[in-house]
């Protein structure tokens, strides 16, 4: 490609100064961008209003495409169901037999649970669900794993509320806009979730790896006690995430923990339920009584 003309302004003083000014503006702009970056490093929630505005602008298009995508998935599922009808019927009947027995056991357990709760004078927290929405987009080109939810403050969604799908925990709300909210997915490197093994309640922490898997680290020392196929659920420790939400399945044992794949796949979840923070009042009281009084939850 030929060199552009503007690089050779000739003898015209005006053109020479004009070229010089563009370089000055470019350097100044770079410094301004660096300052803006320094501000967002110091205060990660600082430009959330701007990001929320961006999400609001693109949300209508994203909603339409999300609907199209869902209908296509439904059509696929319907077609597949017709093709697999006979074999699926047999498999489901077998499964229903097994489930019936478990259902009766569960019923008995529920009665017993209610009786024990009555003895301990524990009361249910009331309605834990805030609103139901859909995930309409995600930051698929950034190393951050943040998804956009189709509902926001208009449905009472607030920061630091847990979000779950039908198959498991999705993440937590970090920013809210008028009709959208941004959710930090459990696979983000920053999202720590207190979890436990479903079979024996072995306490552990989960940290995202940013590549669709999470690292489960047990609290006890020594060799990793996990086995491939272990089911991990949330433990409710610390109060934000309610206990016993399905979380992940162990796929690989490592030296100090395990790799697991979350049950909730953000790309394939039909809806997302925003829930009230577990034991929200207790946490607020605890934070208010913190020695320095400054142990506040930050947005991101």
């Amino acid at each position, binding site marked *: *490609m030929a060199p552009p003309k503007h690089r050779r302004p000739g003898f015209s003083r005006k053109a020479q100064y004009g070229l010089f000014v563009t370089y000055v503006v470019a350097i100044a702009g770079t410094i301004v961008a660096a300052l803006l970056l320094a501000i967002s490093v110091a205060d990660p929630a600082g430009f959330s209003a701007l990001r929320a505005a961006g999400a609001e602008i693109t949300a209508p298009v994203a909603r339409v495409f999300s609907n199209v995508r869902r209908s296509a998935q439904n059509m696929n599922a319907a077609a597949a169901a017709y093709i697999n009808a006979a074999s699926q019927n047999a498999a489901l009947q077998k499964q229903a037999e097994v489930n019936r027995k478990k259902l009766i056991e569960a019923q008995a357990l529920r009665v017993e649970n209610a009786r024990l709760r009555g003895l301990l004078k524990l009361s249910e927290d009331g309605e834990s669900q805030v609103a139901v929405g859909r995930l309409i987009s995600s930051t698929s080109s950034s190393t951050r794993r943040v998804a956009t939810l189709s509902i926001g403050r208009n449905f009472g969604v607030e920061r630091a509320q847990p979000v779950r799908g039908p198959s498991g925990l999705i993440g937590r709300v970090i920013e809210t806009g008028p009709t959208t909210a941004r959710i930090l997915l459990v*696979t983000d490197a920053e999202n720590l979730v207190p979890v436990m093994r479903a079979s024996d309640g072995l306490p552990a922490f989960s940290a995202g790896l940013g590549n669709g898997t999470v690292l489960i680290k047990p609290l006890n020392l020594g060799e990793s006690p996990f086995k491939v196929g272990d089911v991990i659920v949330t433990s409710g420790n610390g109060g934000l995430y309610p206990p016993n939400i399905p979380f992940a399945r162990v796929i690989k044992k490592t030296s100090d923990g395990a790799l697991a794949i979350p049950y909730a796949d953000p790309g394939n979840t039909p809806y997302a339920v925003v829930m009230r923070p577990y034991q929200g009042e207790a946490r607020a009281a605890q934070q208010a009584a913190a020695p320095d009084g400054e142990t506040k939850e930050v947005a991101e």
Partner: protein
Amino acid sequence: MKIPVTTIRLPTRPAREYESRFDREQSLLKMLAIPIASVAIASMITALPIFTAEPLLPPLGLLMFLSWRLMRPGLLPVWSGVPFGLMDDVFSGQPFGSAGLLWSLAMLFIEIIDARAVWRDHLQDWLIAAIVIAAVLLGGWWIAGMVHAAPEPAILIPQIILSILLYPLAVRICARLDSWRLAT
């Protein structure tokens, strides 16, 4: 300056029957708006319902921006990395100012190369774009790591390769848009 030539009547498309057929000028709006809008729309594509387990979607705004810069030197001013980058930051999920800084540095880097390697072909442009794409993605990872906990840098490798391979396509799209932009 349009000179109506009504005396010459040649068979032509109905819409242009009464228009001048030579010395037409391009629409100024189209000339300015197409590069800006194409980069903006490419930056917004990440807002569509695309879900990936790891960062895999190429930074389409950056690809478009680099294509315009390398295919049409002199069209985008040196300082244009800042506004385009800040717009990309609104949608990308990176800390605000990250792309503003990185795209602007990329712009200055290409400006320096322009002064050294004046006559280049497409392959050399592709090499420059590859270096810039890898540097911007790694820089974005580093900046995100300053603010938040960051994953291993190795998860960026598929995205970097995909983005580098997509650059020629972005140039083709830019070339098509450019011929439309300059059409009379």
